[in-house]
């Protein structure tokens, strides 16, 4: 006679290592895996845990836990029963050697008064809108929640800012700030895809807002119809999580660098000319800053603008979307951001070149501890126009 379900569970529980919640609380490098259903996870889970509903265990475990079979994995559910079954599967079928089930599940965890995290839940419409993100283990609900809570500032709604804004809006970045003092011009439309022919003459910030809201009404658009300068930069950039730099001149790039290093805000920076693009991520004190890469700006004859020299219309699309990708990575913590590396793209030859960028121990900006900068100094900048002009 076949054994009863209860008997099978008893047998499996006796063969699986069980650990007490107190042991789980102390951590010890184990991956904590919640195998309950999504509604149960949403109602509250152990902070730092990963989630795979038991029915998806085999198909998703490598993406979530990793393929290292010696990785310590502790599984939990509501009471310790489903987790024991899942632990058994991980061990016997999938070959994870170091698996345990948490005794008593999250019920006992809560009884002990240990911390429970209640995630922001998505509406039905949001679940559908972001479903392709939710399916990617590196993003998932946790990453999508981070995106929805994130504030990203776009400097310029032009060539680079256009594709970046569109995709970040689609990705569900909660707040998009847009700084631009220009109006939409016919000559912009060859590459600035956020604007349209019927919006020629409209302020770019307004045109961008229409496009962003058209894609995703969830996004809060904050418009700054102004030019970033020393008098307004600290006020504008404060409170943003990431800044996307696509500005068209050196004085603003140096100003932005100095202000973001002082405030500790990462900058995803790109520039384009002709058929060439450059991209890097400057994360203050984790990697080099813009001045470590370029201590002084080039003279005017070696720094032509796109307005003067032209640019392939598709190129800001390529570079802007690489920027958007880096922004999503910085917010969600997925992957290895382009910190300390400079990526060069040459469109005619279709080549990418990666160069190392080192922190300059003598850097006048990022070698100084921001805590040593007084309030009086913060927001006080040298005359960048003169600095850049002097280099010429």
């Amino acid at each position, binding site marked *: 006679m076949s054994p009863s379900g209860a008997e099978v569970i008893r047998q499996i529980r006796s063969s699986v290592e069980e650990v007490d919640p107190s042991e789980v609380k102390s951590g010890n490098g184990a991956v904590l895996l919640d195998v309950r259903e999504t509604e149960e996870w949403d109602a509250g889970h152990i902070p730092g845990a990963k989630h795979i509903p038991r029915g998806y265990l085999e198909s998703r475990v490598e993406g979530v836990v990793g393929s290292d079979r010696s990785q310590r994995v502790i599984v939990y559910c509501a009471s310790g029963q489903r987790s024991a079954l899942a632990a058994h599967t991980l061990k016997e079928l999938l070959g994870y050697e170091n698996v345990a089930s948490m005794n008593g599940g999250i019920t006992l965890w809560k009884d002990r008064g240990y911390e429970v995290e209640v995630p922001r839940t998505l509406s039905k419409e949001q679940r559908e809108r972001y479903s392709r993100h939710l399916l990617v283990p590196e993003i998932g609900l946790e990453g999508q929640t981070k995106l929805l809570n994130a504030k990203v500032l776009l*400097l*310029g*709604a*032009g*060539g*680079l*800012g256009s594709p970046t804004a569109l995709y970040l809006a689609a990705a569900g970045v909660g707040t998009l700030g847009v700084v*631009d003092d*220009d109006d939409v011009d016919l000559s912009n439309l060859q590459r600035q895809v956020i604007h349209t022919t019927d919006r020629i003459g409209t302020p770019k910030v307004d045109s961008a807002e229409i496009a962003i809201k058209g894609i995703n009404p969830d996004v809060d658009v904050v418009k700054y119809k102004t030019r970033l300068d020393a008098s307004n930069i600290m006020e504008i950039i404060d409170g943003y999580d990431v800044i996307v*730099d*696509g*500005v*068209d*001149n*050196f004085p603003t*790039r140096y100003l932005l660098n100095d202000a973001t290093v002082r405030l500790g805000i990462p900058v995803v920076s*790109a*520039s*384009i*000319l*002709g*058929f*060439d693009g*450059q991209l890097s991520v400057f994360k203050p004190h984790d990697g080099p800053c813009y001045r470590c*890469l*370029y*201590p*002084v*700006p*080039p*003279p005017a004859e*070696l*720094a*032509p*603008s*796109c*307005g003067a*020299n032209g*640019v392939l219309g598709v190129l*800001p699309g390529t570079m802007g979307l690489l920027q958007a990708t880096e922004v999503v990575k910085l917010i969600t913590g997925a992957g290895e951001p382009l910190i300390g590396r*400079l990526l*060069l793209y*040459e469109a*005619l*030859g279709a080549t990418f*070149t*990666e*160069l*190392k*960028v*080192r922190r300059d121990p003598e850097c006048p900006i990022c070698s100084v501890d921001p805590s040593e900068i007084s309030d009086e100094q913060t927001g006080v900048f040298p005359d960048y126009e003169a600095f850049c002009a002097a*280099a010429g």
Partner: protein
Amino acid sequence: MATIKIPPVLRPSVGGEKEVQADGADVGAVLRALAEQHPATQSQLFGADGSLNRYVNVYLNDEDVRVLDGLDTTVGESDTLVILPAMAGGAA
């Protein structure tokens, strides 16, 4: 001969080429050979005192020569030098 990757702003000075070859045992020698072949690059790369302009970054393969031995960094036959001035194009 080392390969030198030429940035867009310097291409007019080397007849429009994206890459040129030049001989030299170290970075300084290769760049001076480049300036000899293409005199228009001389003032863009070097100051009056013969030192490399501060706004020009030079990489040996993927490493900034400033963290190596600068212009004295040894260059092998199959090495690539990348000349890189800053670019600011973006929004406009």
